């Protein structure tokens, strides 16, 4: 058996971890906004799939990654509007509408892929951009500072989200709407508008998450490309206690599990592949049972808001 504990392997595992955490970060930070406003969007995975497909298809046709990214965000926005319309305006059960969205995204992306592309083809996605000086630091440089724009943005999104939530009037409104919509309403905040905004923001970010899978990590599309990562992203929000920093911790932990699992296979270590693949999902279940602090859960999460009258 070869020695797996070398610097090269470790740096490889960590590099993969950083890359793999990108879709988790986008999707889970977006879902954090959505949930803080009181809406659980279980359709994240579906959004990632459909947006991921469109990003891939745009790059497949034009080779322009930015066009792909833009299209993914648009798909996210449209699906976010669908989710908000059904669960905020029509006040349907959020769990059901989310699952509907997920199935729509899964089915639609498979269908379009079969009709428009047919076979698995790879494309050239976002290329790494080495940051001057920082990128030259031994070991760390290649892990942290030699990534593509999407990866950098995902990590910058963590402090940015924190700042919006803690320091702006918008953040205060979002949290108030998720904690006590009647109170927010009584001081003239438009509860539905804030929820639409938060759900759509979450969905656009889920779209970016999908793009980061199809045109940054895998650089291809296939049926069910996400294999449930959107659901893990939802779980990460609970794990992270509805805080961006918590989400970051969770995203890194899960990507590490994923990355380790991949490297075990790459190195040909004798672990049944199906067991290795299971690892992140098992981790999700274990963590959710053990670590979630329900005390921080927005009090109006998953509850429709009805005004006093009618």
């Amino acid at each position, binding site marked *: 058996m070869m020695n797996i504990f070398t610097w090269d392997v470790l740096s490889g595992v960590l590099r993969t971890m950083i890359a793999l955490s990108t879709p988790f970060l986008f999707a889970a930070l977006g879902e954090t906004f959505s949930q803080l406003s009181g809406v659980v969007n279980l359709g994240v995975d579906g959004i990632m799939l459909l947006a991921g497909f469109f990003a891939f298809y745009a790059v497949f046709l034009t080779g322009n990654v930015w066009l792909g990214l833009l299209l993914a965000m648009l798909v996210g926005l449209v699906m976010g509007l669908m989710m908000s319309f059904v669960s905020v305006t029509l006040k349907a059960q959020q769990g059901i509408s989310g699952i509907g969205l997920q199935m729509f995204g899964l089915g639609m992306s498979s269908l379009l892929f079969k009709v428009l592309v047919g076979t698995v083809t790879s494309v050239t996605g976002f290329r790494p951009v080495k940051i001057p000086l920082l990128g030259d630091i031994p070991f760390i440089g290649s892990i942290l500072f030699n990534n593509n724009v999407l990866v950098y943005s995902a990590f910058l999104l963590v402090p940015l989200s924190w700042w919006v939530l803690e320091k*702006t*009037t918008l953040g*205060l409104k979002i*949290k*108030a709407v998720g904690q006590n919509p*009647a*109170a927010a*309403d009584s*001081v003239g905040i438009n509860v539905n508008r804030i929820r639409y905004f938060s759900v759509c923001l979450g969905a656009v970010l889920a779209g970016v998450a999908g793009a980061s899978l199809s045109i940054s990590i895998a650089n291809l599309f296939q049926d069910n490309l996400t294999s449930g990562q959107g659901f893990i992203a939802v779980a990460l929000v609970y794990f992270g206690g509805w805080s961006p920093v918590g989400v970051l911790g969770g995203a890194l932990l899960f990507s590490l599990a994923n990355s380790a699992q991949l490297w075990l296979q790459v190195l040909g270590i004798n672990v049944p592949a199906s067991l290795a693949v299971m690892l992140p999902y098992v981790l999700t279940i274990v963590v959710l049972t053990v670590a979630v602090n329900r005390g921080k859960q927005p009090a109006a999460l998953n509850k429709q808001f009805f005004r006093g*009258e009618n």
Partner: protein
Amino acid sequence: MKVMIQHVEMKGIVKRFPGVLACDKVDFDLKAGEVHALLGENGAGKSTLMKILYGMYQIDDGSIVIDGTERHFHSPADALDAGIGMIHQHFMLVPTMTVAQNVALGQPSSRGFLLDLDVVSERICELSAEYGLKVNPNDLVGHLSVGEQQRVEIIKALYRGASIIILDEPTAVLTPQEVDDLFIILKKMVKEGHGLVFISHKLHEVTALCNRITVLRDGKMMGTRSAEGVERHDLIKMMVGRDLKTLQHRDYNPGPARLEVRGLHVTGDRGVESVRGIDLTVHSGEILGIAGVSGNGQLELAESLIGVRKVDSGSILLNGTDITNLKLNERIDQGVAIIPEERMLDGAINDFSVQENVFLHDHMEKSFRKGIFLDFKTMAAHARELVREFTVKTPTLDTPIKNLSGGNIQKLIMARELARKPSVLVAAQPTRGVDIGASEYIHQRLLMQRDSGTAILLSSEDLDELYELSDRIAVIYEGQIMGIFERKDTDIQTLGLLMAGIKPGDPPKPEKVIAACED
């Protein structure tokens, strides 16, 4: 500050809800520098009338005139802009946020889209000092007492520049001392030129605080009186439509102990110990009142007595036999009757008919069965008898009880429970949300039951009611009994202090220092 409103007039206000005429051509007016009380029973339309003024409901007919100009408010934001604020019966606060965040919420910030909590805090401190509100901008609202939360609501209204402030039953949740404190604050506000609407159904508060009193009954205005020299029974008559019977003061001859509680410890829903070592005895022929501000363990105590909450340690004896480990059903069979706190949740099944609700427990009784079948004829006769005896107003026995008013549901539950001739009755807030007429009836029934020898444990947040009915009163505070008194040996003031955790002879609590407001 905005220009102070001098005169608000509501003329011929009509508001319909499906099947209810909540306001029927009501006239109401308020001047700067006065407290105008809105008095009336539950469902009289007080909240509705004021929610109209606050822009939450739209009128079907009538007009609102402010300082001579007719106004239409389409939302609370409109009303706030015009200088009208409202403090709701259920506070509109976000418990996970600080006082300053709650005040800033929905208000334009001096820094655009960035929060300006330091500026807000400063203004809170100013207002706090000006009106004697004692509020710390950095406290988490969820950690504040009910009285403090109410002051946060007042600050919110003042911060938004409200010159007219509507207070919807502001005293319902307060201890007597907190009520006194609130009145001092309100009087200060009036002196500063604010106009206040004070909604209540407690006569003595209304006469103590207000300048004018308007009475509503069933959506109709019954008249406006000046508070000076007004007769209590006149107001009651306007509210209820008839005179109330006064309760006679009764002899107190307790019999043998029926219910004994020894060293009871019980854990509440949040995992904290809610009942911390309680000893109580209730005798045959007495009403033992449990006084306390809500959330001090009275709910958990009642729940453990009837067997729906696990006891950690200690014991409960019924007529000398240990029932600590018996289930609810078994306790009922042993002679415990229950009037639960949430009648719609725990006392009855909303979609079941009147008759079905009467037999929720007793359908297994031999007298209501024919072999293995139910004897509907006898059951209907029994139900009809109870409905008649307890004057439950219902169209038929088959009416689902969700269509009955709160008072009638409560009477039905009471009829069902008392029909079993219980040896112990646990009554938790039996008149909460029940109108005065039905409350009066329930009070009389409780006293009759006491005279017939039942031991009654009564908990109520309405200290006046508790004091009127009880032979002995135990004050509960943070899960412990602060003292048990015979009614004749105590008064409402003493009880109120104990409810706040202050024992007679204790040095007065040090003034809370508001660190954030000091330079």
